[in-house]
C-alpha cells in the first residue's frame, strides 16, 4: 500500500533500537560509589552482586565473609553483610532494594575466592530487584572507572 511509507519503516526500526538499548542497559554490570557491582540476569528480575576488583585489591586478603540471610528484604543502601581482612571489617551495602534470594555459600569456606574473582566467582549474593529504575541511577563501567580514579 502506498501509505506504508518510509516513515512507518523508520518507526519500527527506532522502536527496535530502543528495545535493544533497554535490554543491553539491563544486562550490563552497574556500579556504586560504595564499590559494589550488580549484574541482572536475562529475565531482568534477579541481580548478582559483589564488590569490585578495585575494592578487593584495597581490602587485601579476605579472611571472613558475613553473608546475608536468604529471604532478607532490604532497601537500597542497607547493610546486608560484611567482608573482613586481617586489618578491618567493611560493610556491604545493597545497591538496590529487594529480597535476597541466594548467598554465595562457597565464600564461607573459601573467603579468598573474593580476591581471586571479585566480579565473577567471588559474587556475594543474588537479589530479586523490586524497582528496576534504581539500576538507572547506578554507574556504568566507564563512569565507575572514572570515579575511582578521583
Amino acid at each position, binding site marked *: 500500500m502506498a501509505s506504508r511509507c518510509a516513515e512507518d519503516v523508520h518507526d519500527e526500526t527506532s522502536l527496535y533500537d530502543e528495545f535493544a538499548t533497554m535490554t543491553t542497559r539491563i544486562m550490563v554490570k552497574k556500579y556504586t560509589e560504595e564499590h559494589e557491582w550488580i549484574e541482572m540476569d536475562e529475565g531482568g528480575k534477579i541481580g548478582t552482586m559483589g564488590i569490585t576488583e578495585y575494592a578487593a585489591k584495597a581490602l587485601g586478603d579476605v579472611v571472613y565473609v558475613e553473608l546475608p540471610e536468604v529471604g532478607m528484604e532490604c532497601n537500597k543502601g542497607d547493610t546486608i553483610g560484611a567482608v573482613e581482612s586481617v586489618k578491618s*571489617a*567493611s560493610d556491604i551495602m545493597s545497591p538496590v532494594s529487594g529480597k535476597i534470594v541466594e548467598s554465595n555459600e562457597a565464600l564461607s569456606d573459601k573467603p579468598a575466592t573474593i580476591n581471586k574473582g571479585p566480579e565473577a566467582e567471588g559474587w556475594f549474593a543474588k537479589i530479586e530487584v523490586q524497582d528496576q529504575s534504581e539500576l538507572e541511577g547506578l554507574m556504568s563501567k566507564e563512569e565507575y572507572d572514572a570515579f575511582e580514579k578521583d
Partner: protein
Amino acid sequence: MPPTRGIQNALKSTIRATRQQIRQPEGPKAPTRGVCTCSVIPTPSKTHQAEVRPFVHQQKLPTRVVPQKRCASTSTTELKHTPLYAVHKEAGAKTGPFAGYDMPLEYPDQSHPESHRWTRENASLFDVSHMVQHKLSGPLAEEFLMTITPSSINTLQKHHSSLSCLLEESGGIIGDTVITRLGRESFYFVTNAGCRETDLAFIKAQMKKFLEAKGISKSNKDENIKWHVLNCHSLVALQGPKAQEVLQKLIFNDTEEQTYSPDLSTLSFGESRWLQFTLPDGMNTPSLLISRTGYTGEDGFEISIPPENGDSTNLATAISKAMVDDGSVVRWAGLAARDSLRLEAGMCLYGHDISTETTPPMAALGWIVGKDRRSESAAPVFNGQKTILQQLTSPKSMTERRVGFLVEKGPAAREGAQIVDPDKDNEVIGRITSGCPAPSMDGQNIAMGLIKNGYHKSGTKVGIKVRKSVRKAEVSRMPFIPSKFYRPDNKDKDQKEMKNNTEK
C-alpha cells in the same frame, strides 16, 4: 569507637592517604635535611674515620577509625617522610598516614597475612624511623628517669635495656618506652611516634619541675642533665628467626682491635652493643647501636643509624639494601604486619590498649615496677607511686584490667566492641581495644581489651558484641603464641613474667 564502616571509608584511608590533609599541633618540626642540631650518641673511643666512606626524613593504622584517646592529632601540613621513604616508594609500597608520617603499610610482593607469616618463618625489615629516639645524660639523668618511670634504672646495667612507662602524676601511662643504659650517666630511649608532641612536652615540663625542686637554675641545667631528641637518626627493626644469621654476615670483624665482640650469639634479648657493619661494597659503617629487642615476639634487632652531615638517608638506605638484598631471606614489611604481629605477641599499642586512663598494674605491666621501688619509703618517689603501689598490693582495688581474649570462629572482635556478661542479660563489662584474626594461628580471632575486675581471670567466658550478634569468647593469657626472645641462659623468663602478672 567501632572500626570504619563500608569499603568506601576503608578505601579512602588506604588508597587516598597521600592526598589527605592531616592535623598536627604546632611544635618543633623534625628537620629532614640540613645541619642537624642534635648530638650524635658518642661512639666507642676507637677511631675509624679512615675506614668509613663519607656518605654523600593512630593512632592507629589508617583502615581503622582513630579513637578519641589517641595522644597525637595531626595538622594541616603535608605528611612527613622518614629517610627511607624513597626506598619504600621504589619497592612499590602501599603507604598511608600514621602519626603524621606517610608510612609503608604493605609491599606488593606479599599480602598482609603473607608478610606476617614471613616474619615468623624467615625475617622482615621494618622502617621505624618515625619513632622518637632520645639521649639523656648527666649526673641527674638517672634520678630524673626514676621520677618519671617506676623502673629500677639505678640497677640497670650498662648496655642493658628495660621496657618502661612514662607516668603522669596520677600514675596513668603517658607513653611506653624502652630505656637502655649507655654508660654511668648516659641513657638512650625510644618513644612512640604517635605520642611525639605530648611526650616531648611532658619530658620538658617534668624536667623543669625536677630541676626546680632541686634548686638548680637554668644556667646550671646542662651540667646536670642533657636531653637530645635524635631527629636525624633512622631506626630499623630486623625481626624473625633468621635475623641473627643475616645480621652476622654484615658485622665487621676487626681482628686488630676489638672493643666489642662481633659474635651476635653472645648478645641476649634486652642487651645492646656498638658494632660496625661492612657493606657489600667493602666499606665500613660507623659504629651502630644494635639492640636485641623488638615488637613482634620474635628474635630480632633494632638498629639505630646516625646521620652524617645532618642526614641518615644514605647510610640507612645502604644498610637496609644490604639486609634485604635479593629478598630470599629478608623482606620489607609494613605497619599492617607490624600490628598483627605485636597483637599475637600480646604487646600493647599506645592510645588503644594503654593510655593515661591505665596505670601499669591495670595494663598488666605491673612487672615493670622495680622490686626495690615497691615501698613508700623508696626514693626517689615516682609519679603516681601511691596509687600504683596500692594497686600492686591489692589488685582487687583496680576497676578494670587489660586481658587477652580468644573469640569463636566468625567475625573478629575489633577495637570498640563491647564485652558483655552472657549470664547477666548481656550487661556491658568492658571494651575491646585491639583485635583481629591471627595470621599465625590459622585465623583464630584474638583480641585485647579492658574488662571489669572480677572477670579478668583466664578462662572466664564472656560475650563480645560484633555487629548484630554476640560472639562467644573467653579471657586468655598472653602472649597468644610463644615468644622467641633470644635468651640462651634463661629461656622461660619472659613467659613467667607476663603470666605472673595477668592473674591475681
